[in-house]
Protein backbone atom coordinates (compact mmCIF):
# COMPACT_ATOMS: atom_id res chain seq x y z
CA UNK A 1 0.00 0.00 0.00
CA UNK A 2 2.69 2.49 1.03
CA UNK A 3 4.68 1.84 -2.13
CA UNK A 4 1.66 2.55 -4.30
CA UNK A 5 0.81 5.69 -2.37
CA UNK A 6 4.40 6.81 -2.72
CA UNK A 7 4.16 6.36 -6.44
CA UNK A 8 1.01 8.46 -6.56
CA UNK A 9 2.58 11.16 -4.39
CA UNK A 10 5.74 11.24 -6.50
CA UNK A 11 3.74 11.41 -9.70
CA UNK A 12 1.43 14.10 -8.39
CA UNK A 13 4.33 16.25 -7.20
CA UNK A 14 6.42 15.93 -10.32
CA UNK A 15 5.93 19.51 -11.55
CA UNK A 16 6.38 21.17 -8.17
CA UNK A 17 9.43 19.02 -7.46
CA UNK A 18 11.08 19.89 -10.74
CA UNK A 19 10.61 23.57 -10.03
CA UNK A 20 11.81 23.08 -6.47
CA UNK A 21 14.94 21.33 -7.72
CA UNK A 22 15.64 24.22 -10.06
CA UNK A 23 15.20 26.67 -7.21
CA UNK A 24 17.43 24.69 -4.91
CA UNK A 25 20.44 25.47 -7.06
CA UNK A 26 19.70 29.05 -7.94
CA UNK A 27 19.40 30.69 -4.50
CA UNK A 28 22.79 29.26 -3.57
CA UNK A 29 24.37 30.78 -6.64
CA UNK A 30 22.57 34.06 -6.14
CA UNK A 31 23.47 34.30 -2.48
CA UNK A 32 27.06 33.54 -3.45
CA UNK A 33 26.99 36.33 -5.98
CA UNK A 34 25.58 38.72 -3.42
CA UNK A 35 28.18 37.79 -0.81
CA UNK A 36 30.88 38.18 -3.44
CA UNK A 37 29.66 41.67 -4.17
CA UNK A 38 29.62 42.62 -0.54
CA UNK A 39 33.21 41.42 -0.17
CA UNK A 40 34.25 43.32 -3.28
CA UNK A 41 32.60 46.47 -2.01
CA UNK A 42 34.29 46.17 1.34
CA UNK A 43 37.73 45.75 -0.15
CA UNK A 44 37.23 48.53 -2.69
CA UNK A 45 36.00 50.72 0.13
CA UNK A 46 39.25 50.10 2.00
CA UNK A 47 41.24 51.12 -1.07
CA UNK A 48 39.26 54.36 -1.24
CA UNK A 49 39.88 55.11 2.41
CA UNK A 50 43.60 54.48 1.95
CA UNK A 51 43.71 56.74 -1.08
CA UNK A 52 41.91 59.44 0.86
CA UNK A 53 44.29 59.11 3.81
CA UNK A 54 47.33 59.28 1.54
CA UNK A 55 46.00 62.36 -0.16
CA UNK A 56 45.51 64.03 3.20
CA UNK A 57 49.06 63.08 4.20
CA UNK A 58 50.42 64.40 0.94
CA UNK A 59 48.58 67.69 1.35
CA UNK A 60 49.78 68.08 4.92
CA UNK A 61 53.41 67.17 4.47
CA UNK A 62 54.24 68.67 1.10
CA UNK A 63 53.51 71.61 -1.06
CA UNK A 64 54.16 72.71 -4.62
CA UNK A 65 52.99 71.78 -8.07
CA UNK A 66 53.87 68.06 -8.01
CA UNK A 67 52.16 67.50 -4.71
CA UNK A 68 49.07 69.33 -5.95
CA UNK A 69 48.98 67.22 -9.08
CA UNK A 70 49.38 64.04 -7.07
CA UNK A 71 46.57 65.10 -4.78
CA UNK A 72 44.37 65.85 -7.79
CA UNK A 73 45.10 62.44 -9.31
CA UNK A 74 44.31 60.78 -6.02
CA UNK A 75 41.04 62.67 -5.86
CA UNK A 76 40.17 61.44 -9.36
CA UNK A 77 40.95 57.90 -8.28
CA UNK A 78 38.75 58.26 -5.21
CA UNK A 79 35.91 59.46 -7.41
CA UNK A 80 36.25 56.46 -9.70
CA UNK A 81 36.33 54.13 -6.77
CA UNK A 82 33.20 55.77 -5.38
CA UNK A 83 31.44 55.24 -8.72
CA UNK A 84 32.49 51.63 -8.66
CA UNK A 85 31.13 51.29 -5.14
CA UNK A 86 27.80 52.80 -6.14
CA UNK A 87 27.55 50.47 -9.11
CA UNK A 88 28.41 47.49 -6.97
CA UNK A 89 25.74 48.45 -4.43
CA UNK A 90 23.19 48.59 -7.20
CA UNK A 91 24.11 45.13 -8.45
CA UNK A 92 24.12 43.81 -4.92
CA UNK A 93 20.62 45.11 -4.34
CA UNK A 94 19.34 43.69 -7.61
CA UNK A 95 20.81 40.34 -6.64
CA UNK A 96 18.98 40.61 -3.33
CA UNK A 97 15.72 41.23 -5.21
CA UNK A 98 16.40 38.18 -7.36
CA UNK A 99 17.00 36.04 -4.30
CA UNK A 100 13.76 37.28 -2.77
CA UNK A 101 11.80 36.58 -5.96
CA UNK A 102 13.06 33.03 -5.93
CA UNK A 103 12.13 32.72 -2.28
CA UNK A 104 8.56 33.81 -2.98
CA UNK A 105 8.37 31.37 -5.89
CA UNK A 106 9.57 28.65 -3.57
CA UNK A 107 6.93 29.39 -0.93
CA UNK A 108 4.13 29.37 -3.49
CA UNK A 109 5.48 26.17 -4.93
CA UNK A 110 5.46 24.67 -1.44
CA UNK A 111 1.87 25.77 -0.92
CA UNK A 112 0.75 24.11 -4.14
CA UNK A 113 2.63 20.99 -3.16
CA UNK A 114 0.94 20.90 0.24
CA UNK A 115 -2.40 21.23 -1.50
CA UNK A 116 -1.56 18.34 -3.83
CA UNK A 117 -0.52 16.19 -0.89
CA UNK A 118 -3.83 17.00 0.84
CA UNK A 119 -5.80 16.04 -2.28
CA UNK A 120 -3.93 12.76 -2.57
CA UNK A 121 -4.46 12.03 1.11
CA UNK A 122 -8.20 12.69 0.86
CA UNK A 123 -8.53 10.54 -2.25
CA UNK A 124 -6.57 7.64 -0.75
CA UNK A 125 -8.84 7.70 2.28
CA UNK A 126 -11.88 7.71 0.03
CA UNK A 127 -10.49 4.79 -1.98
CA UNK A 128 -10.13 2.76 1.20
CA UNK A 129 -13.54 3.79 2.47
CA UNK A 130 -15.47 2.79 -0.66
CA UNK A 131 -13.97 -0.71 -0.43
CA UNK A 132 -17.03 -1.68 1.54
CA UNK A 133 -19.43 -1.02 -1.34
CA UNK A 134 -21.21 -4.03 -2.82
CA UNK A 135 -21.30 -5.29 -5.54
CA UNK A 136 -17.69 -5.04 -6.82
CA UNK A 137 -18.81 -3.29 -10.03
CA UNK A 138 -20.17 -0.39 -7.99
CA UNK A 139 -17.02 -0.32 -5.87
CA UNK A 140 -14.87 -0.15 -9.00
CA UNK A 141 -17.00 2.66 -10.42
CA UNK A 142 -16.61 4.69 -7.24
CA UNK A 143 -12.86 4.08 -7.18
CA UNK A 144 -12.54 5.11 -10.80
CA UNK A 145 -14.43 8.30 -10.09
CA UNK A 146 -12.17 9.14 -7.13
CA UNK A 147 -9.05 8.66 -9.21
CA UNK A 148 -10.39 10.66 -12.14
CA UNK A 149 -11.27 13.55 -9.83
CA UNK A 150 -7.84 13.37 -8.22
CA UNK A 151 -6.20 13.43 -11.60
CA UNK A 152 -8.20 16.51 -12.60
CA UNK A 153 -7.33 18.32 -9.35
CA UNK A 154 -3.63 17.56 -9.63
CA UNK A 155 -3.71 18.75 -13.22
CA UNK A 156 -5.29 21.99 -12.11
CA UNK A 157 -2.82 22.46 -9.26
CA UNK A 158 0.28 21.68 -11.30
CA UNK A 159 -1.05 24.13 -13.83
CA UNK A 160 -0.96 26.63 -10.99
CA UNK A 161 2.54 25.59 -10.06
CA UNK A 162 3.63 26.05 -13.64
CA UNK A 163 2.12 29.55 -13.63
CA UNK A 164 3.95 30.43 -10.42
CA UNK A 165 7.27 29.20 -11.72
CA UNK A 166 6.72 31.06 -14.97
CA UNK A 167 6.00 34.26 -13.06
CA UNK A 168 9.12 33.82 -10.95
CA UNK A 169 11.26 33.28 -14.00
CA UNK A 170 9.67 36.27 -15.75
CA UNK A 171 10.49 38.47 -12.79
CA UNK A 172 14.07 37.27 -12.75
CA UNK A 173 14.38 37.84 -16.49
CA UNK A 174 13.11 41.40 -16.19
CA UNK A 175 15.58 42.04 -13.36
CA UNK A 176 18.34 40.72 -15.57
CA UNK A 177 17.28 43.07 -18.33
CA UNK A 178 17.30 46.05 -15.96
CA UNK A 179 20.84 45.24 -14.90
CA UNK A 180 22.14 44.36 -18.33
CA UNK A 181 20.79 47.53 -19.91
CA UNK A 182 22.44 49.80 -17.42
CA UNK A 183 26.02 49.54 -18.69
CA UNK A 184 27.02 48.08 -15.39
CA UNK A 185 30.76 47.92 -15.98
CA UNK A 186 31.26 51.63 -16.63
CA UNK A 187 32.90 53.24 -13.64
CA UNK A 188 34.10 56.47 -15.20
CA UNK A 189 30.70 57.89 -16.03
CA UNK A 190 30.37 61.46 -14.86
CA UNK A 191 26.99 61.06 -13.24
CA UNK A 192 26.89 59.19 -10.00
CA UNK A 193 24.89 55.98 -10.02
CA UNK A 194 22.01 56.19 -7.60
CA UNK A 195 20.79 53.25 -5.62
CA UNK A 196 17.05 53.20 -6.23
CA UNK A 197 15.02 54.46 -3.32
CA UNK A 198 12.77 51.44 -3.26
CA UNK A 199 15.76 49.22 -2.59
CA UNK A 200 17.02 51.48 0.15
CA UNK A 201 13.77 51.67 1.97
CA UNK A 202 13.13 47.98 1.79
CA UNK A 203 15.13 47.25 4.90
CA UNK A 204 12.72 49.30 6.94
CA UNK A 205 9.73 47.43 5.55
CA UNK A 206 10.91 43.90 6.08
CA UNK A 207 11.21 44.51 9.79
CA UNK A 208 7.44 44.29 10.08
CA UNK A 209 7.08 40.62 9.16
CA UNK A 210 6.33 38.87 12.39
CA UNK A 211 5.73 35.36 11.15
CA UNK A 212 9.22 34.03 10.67
CA UNK A 213 8.64 33.87 6.94
CA UNK A 214 10.38 37.22 6.77
CA UNK A 215 9.29 40.30 4.95
CA UNK A 216 10.70 40.77 1.54
CA UNK A 217 9.05 42.02 -1.56
CA UNK A 218 7.60 40.74 -4.77
CA UNK A 219 8.86 42.50 -7.86
CA UNK A 220 8.87 45.80 -6.05
CA UNK A 221 8.55 48.71 -8.48
CA UNK A 222 10.89 51.69 -8.39
CA UNK A 223 8.79 54.67 -7.42
CA UNK A 224 9.39 58.17 -6.11
CA UNK A 225 9.05 58.67 -2.37
CA UNK A 226 5.79 60.23 -1.22
CA UNK A 227 6.20 63.71 0.22
CA UNK A 228 4.57 64.66 3.52
CA UNK A 229 1.54 66.99 3.42
CA UNK A 230 2.38 70.68 3.18
CA UNK A 231 0.88 73.45 5.34
CA UNK A 232 -2.49 74.65 4.11
CA UNK A 233 -3.21 71.49 2.11
CA UNK A 234 -5.38 68.51 2.93
CA UNK A 235 -9.03 67.58 2.70
CA UNK A 236 -11.11 66.64 5.74
CA UNK A 237 -12.72 63.23 6.10
CA UNK A 238 -15.08 62.27 8.92
CA UNK A 239 -14.40 58.73 10.10
CA UNK A 240 -17.10 56.37 11.40
CA UNK A 241 -15.73 56.75 14.94
CA UNK A 242 -16.45 60.50 14.83
CA UNK A 243 -12.88 61.68 14.34
CA UNK A 244 -11.87 63.96 11.50
CA UNK A 245 -8.66 63.28 9.56
CA UNK A 246 -6.94 64.99 6.64
CA UNK A 247 -6.35 63.28 3.32
CA UNK A 248 -3.51 64.68 1.16
CA UNK A 249 -5.88 65.68 -1.65
CA UNK A 250 -9.46 65.57 -2.91
CA UNK A 251 -8.99 62.29 -4.84
CA UNK A 252 -7.66 60.45 -1.81
CA UNK A 253 -10.46 61.85 0.37
CA UNK A 254 -13.11 60.75 -2.15
CA UNK A 255 -11.56 57.29 -2.38
CA UNK A 256 -11.62 56.88 1.41
CA UNK A 257 -15.24 58.03 1.61
CA UNK A 258 -16.14 55.68 -1.25
CA UNK A 259 -14.39 52.76 0.49
CA UNK A 260 -16.11 53.51 3.81
CA UNK A 261 -19.48 53.52 2.05
CA UNK A 262 -18.90 49.80 1.36
CA UNK A 263 -18.57 48.71 5.01
CA UNK A 264 -20.48 45.46 5.54
CA UNK A 265 -20.48 44.39 1.88
CA UNK A 266 -19.70 40.65 1.69
CA UNK A 267 -16.41 39.33 0.35
CA UNK A 268 -16.68 37.79 -3.11
CA UNK A 269 -13.55 36.48 -4.78
CA UNK A 270 -12.98 38.48 -7.94
CA UNK A 271 -15.88 40.76 -6.98
CA UNK A 272 -16.04 44.35 -8.23
CA UNK A 273 -19.78 44.92 -7.66
CA UNK A 274 -20.09 47.76 -5.18
CA UNK A 275 -22.79 47.21 -2.61
CA UNK A 276 -23.01 43.51 -3.51
CA UNK A 277 -19.69 41.69 -3.40
CA UNK A 278 -16.05 42.83 -3.43
CA UNK A 279 -12.63 41.33 -3.06
CA UNK A 280 -9.74 43.28 -1.53
CA UNK A 281 -8.40 44.84 -4.70
CA UNK A 282 -11.93 45.25 -6.01
CA UNK A 283 -12.70 47.50 -3.03
CA UNK A 284 -9.63 49.70 -3.51
CA UNK A 285 -9.93 49.79 -7.30
CA UNK A 286 -13.63 50.73 -7.41
CA UNK A 287 -13.22 53.27 -4.58
CA UNK A 288 -10.43 55.08 -6.44
CA UNK A 289 -12.48 54.72 -9.61
CA UNK A 290 -15.31 56.62 -7.92
CA UNK A 291 -12.76 59.30 -7.07
CA UNK A 292 -11.71 59.46 -10.72
CA UNK A 293 -8.44 57.50 -10.56
CA UNK A 294 -8.01 54.16 -12.33
CA UNK A 295 -5.95 51.55 -10.45
CA UNK A 296 -4.83 48.18 -11.82
CA UNK A 297 -7.09 45.24 -11.01
CA UNK A 298 -5.00 43.00 -8.73
CA UNK A 299 -3.51 43.71 -5.32
CA UNK A 300 0.05 43.15 -6.44
CA UNK A 301 -0.34 45.60 -9.32
CA UNK A 302 -1.68 48.35 -7.06
CA UNK A 303 1.84 49.44 -6.14
CA UNK A 304 1.43 52.74 -7.98
CA UNK A 305 2.02 56.46 -7.49
CA UNK A 306 4.59 57.10 -4.79
CA UNK A 307 6.03 54.86 -2.13
CA UNK A 308 5.42 55.87 1.48
CA UNK A 309 8.69 55.15 3.28
CA UNK A 310 7.36 54.35 6.74
CA UNK A 311 4.20 53.51 8.66
CA UNK A 312 4.17 56.83 10.56
CA UNK A 313 3.96 58.77 7.29
CA UNK A 314 0.79 57.05 6.10
CA UNK A 315 -2.12 59.29 5.14
CA UNK A 316 -5.77 58.51 4.37
CA UNK A 317 -6.07 56.93 0.91
CA UNK A 318 -2.66 55.21 1.02
CA UNK A 319 -2.61 51.51 0.13
CA UNK A 320 -1.06 48.74 2.18
CA UNK A 321 -0.01 46.05 -0.29
CA UNK A 322 0.86 42.39 0.24
CA UNK A 323 1.64 39.78 -2.38
CA UNK A 324 -2.00 38.77 -2.40
CA UNK A 325 -3.90 41.39 -0.45
CA UNK A 326 -4.44 45.15 -0.30
CA UNK A 327 -6.06 47.52 2.19
CA UNK A 328 -6.71 51.28 2.25
CA UNK A 329 -5.52 53.53 5.06
CA UNK A 330 -8.35 55.73 6.39
CA UNK A 331 -6.37 57.61 9.03
CA UNK A 332 -6.24 57.52 12.82
CA UNK A 333 -4.09 54.37 12.62
CA UNK A 334 -6.82 52.45 10.86
CA UNK A 335 -7.44 50.92 7.46
CA UNK A 336 -10.41 49.54 5.55
CA UNK A 337 -10.18 46.20 3.74
CA UNK A 338 -12.41 43.66 2.07
CA UNK A 339 -12.32 40.82 4.50
CA UNK A 340 -15.69 39.17 4.86
CA UNK A 341 -17.36 41.62 5.04
CA UNK A 342 -15.64 44.94 4.22
CA UNK A 343 -14.40 46.24 7.59
CA UNK A 344 -12.18 48.69 9.42
CA UNK A 345 -9.19 47.52 11.43
CA UNK A 346 -5.85 48.66 12.79
CA UNK A 347 -3.05 49.20 10.26
CA UNK A 348 -0.74 46.16 10.14
CA UNK A 349 1.96 44.80 7.89
CA UNK A 350 1.40 41.08 8.42
CA UNK A 351 -1.22 39.12 6.52
CA UNK A 352 -1.43 35.37 7.05
CA UNK A 353 2.05 34.51 5.85
CA UNK A 354 1.87 36.68 2.75
CA UNK A 355 4.73 38.87 1.65
CA UNK A 356 4.35 42.50 2.66
CA UNK A 357 5.31 44.64 -0.34
CA UNK A 358 4.94 48.20 0.92
CA UNK A 359 2.85 51.34 1.44
CA UNK A 360 1.77 53.26 -1.64
CA UNK A 361 0.09 56.59 -2.35
CA UNK A 362 -1.72 56.27 -5.69
CA UNK A 363 -2.14 60.06 -5.85
CA UNK A 364 1.53 60.71 -4.99
Amino acid at each position, binding site marked *: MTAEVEQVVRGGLDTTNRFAAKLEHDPGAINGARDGHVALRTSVGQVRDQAGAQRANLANSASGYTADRAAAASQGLEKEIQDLLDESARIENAVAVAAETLHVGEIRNDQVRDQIVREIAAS*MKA*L*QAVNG*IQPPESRAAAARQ*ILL*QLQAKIGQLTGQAATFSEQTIDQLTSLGRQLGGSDATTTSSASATHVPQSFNSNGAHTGGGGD*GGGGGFVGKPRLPVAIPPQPGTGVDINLPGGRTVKAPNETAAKAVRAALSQLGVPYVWGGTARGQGLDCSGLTMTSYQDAGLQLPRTARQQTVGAEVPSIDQLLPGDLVVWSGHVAMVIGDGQMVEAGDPVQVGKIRTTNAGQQFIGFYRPTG
Partner: protein
Amino acid sequence: MRSVAEFDVGLEAARIADASARAGVEASARFSRSGPVVGKAESHGVAVSVAPGGLLVGLAISRSALRSGSDALASLIMELSGRATRRAGDRMNEVLSPVLDQDQLVSLGYERLTEDDPDAQYS
Protein backbone atom coordinates in the same frame (compact mmCIF):
# COMPACT_ATOMS: atom_id res chain seq x y z
CA MET B 1 7.92 27.30 6.45
CA ARG B 2 9.31 23.97 5.36
CA SER B 3 12.12 24.32 2.86
CA VAL B 4 12.33 22.51 -0.43
CA ALA B 5 15.08 20.19 0.67
CA GLU B 6 13.26 19.01 3.77
CA PHE B 7 10.27 17.53 1.96
CA ASP B 8 10.32 13.76 2.33
CA VAL B 9 8.09 11.97 -0.16
CA GLY B 10 8.55 8.59 1.54
CA LEU B 11 7.48 9.92 4.90
CA GLU B 12 4.51 11.77 3.43
CA ALA B 13 3.45 8.63 1.55
CA ALA B 14 3.70 6.54 4.71
CA ARG B 15 1.57 9.08 6.56
CA ILE B 16 -1.05 9.06 3.80
CA ALA B 17 -1.06 5.25 3.65
CA ASP B 18 -1.49 5.12 7.39
CA ALA B 19 -4.39 7.59 7.44
CA SER B 20 -6.14 5.85 4.56
CA ALA B 21 -5.71 2.42 6.13
CA ARG B 22 -7.35 3.74 9.28
CA ALA B 23 -10.17 5.22 7.16
CA GLY B 24 -10.57 1.82 5.49
CA VAL B 25 -10.84 -0.03 8.79
CA GLU B 26 -13.33 2.47 10.17
CA ALA B 27 -15.42 2.42 7.00
CA SER B 28 -15.59 -1.36 6.86
CA ALA B 29 -16.63 -1.50 10.53
CA ARG B 30 -19.41 0.95 9.76
CA PHE B 31 -20.46 -1.03 6.66
CA SER B 32 -20.64 -4.25 8.68
CA ARG B 33 -22.91 -2.58 11.20
CA SER B 34 -25.12 -0.98 8.54
CA GLY B 35 -25.35 -4.01 6.26
CA PRO B 36 -25.02 -3.64 2.48
CA VAL B 37 -25.98 -0.18 1.32
CA VAL B 38 -28.81 -0.39 -1.18
CA GLY B 39 -31.22 2.24 -2.38
CA LYS B 40 -34.82 1.12 -2.83
CA ALA B 41 -37.89 2.70 -4.36
CA GLU B 42 -41.33 1.28 -4.99
CA SER B 43 -44.48 2.56 -6.64
CA HIS B 44 -47.50 1.27 -8.59
CA GLY B 45 -46.40 -2.35 -8.39
CA VAL B 46 -42.78 -1.75 -9.42
CA ALA B 47 -39.86 -2.17 -6.96
CA VAL B 48 -36.30 -1.12 -7.76
CA SER B 49 -33.02 -1.72 -5.86
CA VAL B 50 -29.74 -0.07 -6.78
CA ALA B 51 -26.21 -0.16 -5.42
CA PRO B 52 -24.46 3.14 -4.52
CA GLY B 53 -23.73 4.91 -7.77
CA GLY B 54 -26.86 3.65 -9.49
CA LEU B 55 -26.12 0.08 -10.57
CA LEU B 56 -29.46 -1.79 -10.78
CA VAL B 57 -29.35 -4.84 -8.49
CA GLY B 58 -33.01 -5.70 -8.24
CA LEU B 59 -36.22 -5.13 -10.19
CA ALA B 60 -39.70 -6.52 -9.55
CA ILE B 61 -42.71 -5.78 -11.73
CA SER B 62 -46.16 -6.89 -10.65
CA ARG B 63 -48.78 -8.15 -13.02
CA SER B 64 -50.91 -5.06 -12.41
CA ALA B 65 -48.01 -2.76 -13.37
CA LEU B 66 -47.79 -4.50 -16.74
CA ARG B 67 -51.28 -3.35 -17.53
CA SER B 68 -50.29 0.33 -17.44
CA GLY B 69 -48.63 0.09 -20.87
CA SER B 70 -44.99 -0.10 -21.89
CA ASP B 71 -44.33 3.67 -22.05
CA ALA B 72 -45.73 4.36 -18.61
CA LEU B 73 -43.90 1.33 -17.19
CA ALA B 74 -40.56 2.41 -18.71
CA SER B 75 -40.81 5.93 -17.34
CA LEU B 76 -41.84 4.61 -13.93
CA ILE B 77 -38.76 2.37 -13.80
CA MET B 78 -36.53 5.29 -14.80
CA GLU B 79 -38.06 7.52 -12.14
CA LEU B 80 -37.79 4.87 -9.43
CA SER B 81 -34.17 4.02 -10.20
CA GLY B 82 -33.27 7.71 -10.01
CA ARG B 83 -34.99 7.97 -6.65
CA ALA B 84 -33.36 4.78 -5.41
CA THR B 85 -29.93 6.09 -6.48
CA ARG B 86 -30.41 9.24 -4.46
CA ARG B 87 -31.50 7.18 -1.47
CA ALA B 88 -28.42 4.96 -1.79
CA GLY B 89 -26.30 8.13 -1.87
CA ASP B 90 -28.06 9.37 1.23
CA ARG B 91 -27.31 6.11 3.03
CA MET B 92 -23.68 6.16 1.88
CA ASN B 93 -23.33 9.68 3.18
CA GLU B 94 -24.80 8.59 6.50
CA VAL B 95 -22.45 5.60 6.79
CA LEU B 96 -19.27 7.37 5.66
CA SER B 97 -19.75 10.88 7.03
CA PRO B 98 -17.59 10.25 10.13
CA VAL B 99 -14.83 8.87 7.87
CA LEU B 100 -14.68 11.22 4.86
CA ASP B 101 -15.14 14.95 4.28
CA GLN B 102 -18.56 16.09 3.10
CA ASP B 103 -16.99 17.59 -0.04
CA GLN B 104 -15.50 14.25 -0.93
CA LEU B 105 -18.81 12.46 -0.34
CA VAL B 106 -20.77 14.96 -2.38
CA SER B 107 -18.26 14.77 -5.23
CA LEU B 108 -18.96 11.02 -5.38
CA GLY B 109 -22.69 11.66 -5.54
CA TYR B 110 -23.32 10.65 -1.92
CA GLU B 111 -25.54 13.51 -0.89
CA ARG B 112 -27.80 13.82 2.12
CA LEU B 113 -31.49 14.13 1.32
CA THR B 114 -33.30 16.71 3.38
CA GLU B 115 -36.48 15.61 5.10
CA ASP B 116 -38.67 17.60 2.77
CA ASP B 117 -36.99 16.10 -0.31
CA PRO B 118 -39.62 14.19 -2.35
CA ASP B 119 -37.12 11.34 -2.72
CA ALA B 120 -36.36 11.09 1.00
CA GLN B 121 -36.86 7.57 2.29
CA TYR B 122 -39.61 7.96 4.84
CA SER B 123 -41.52 11.02 3.76
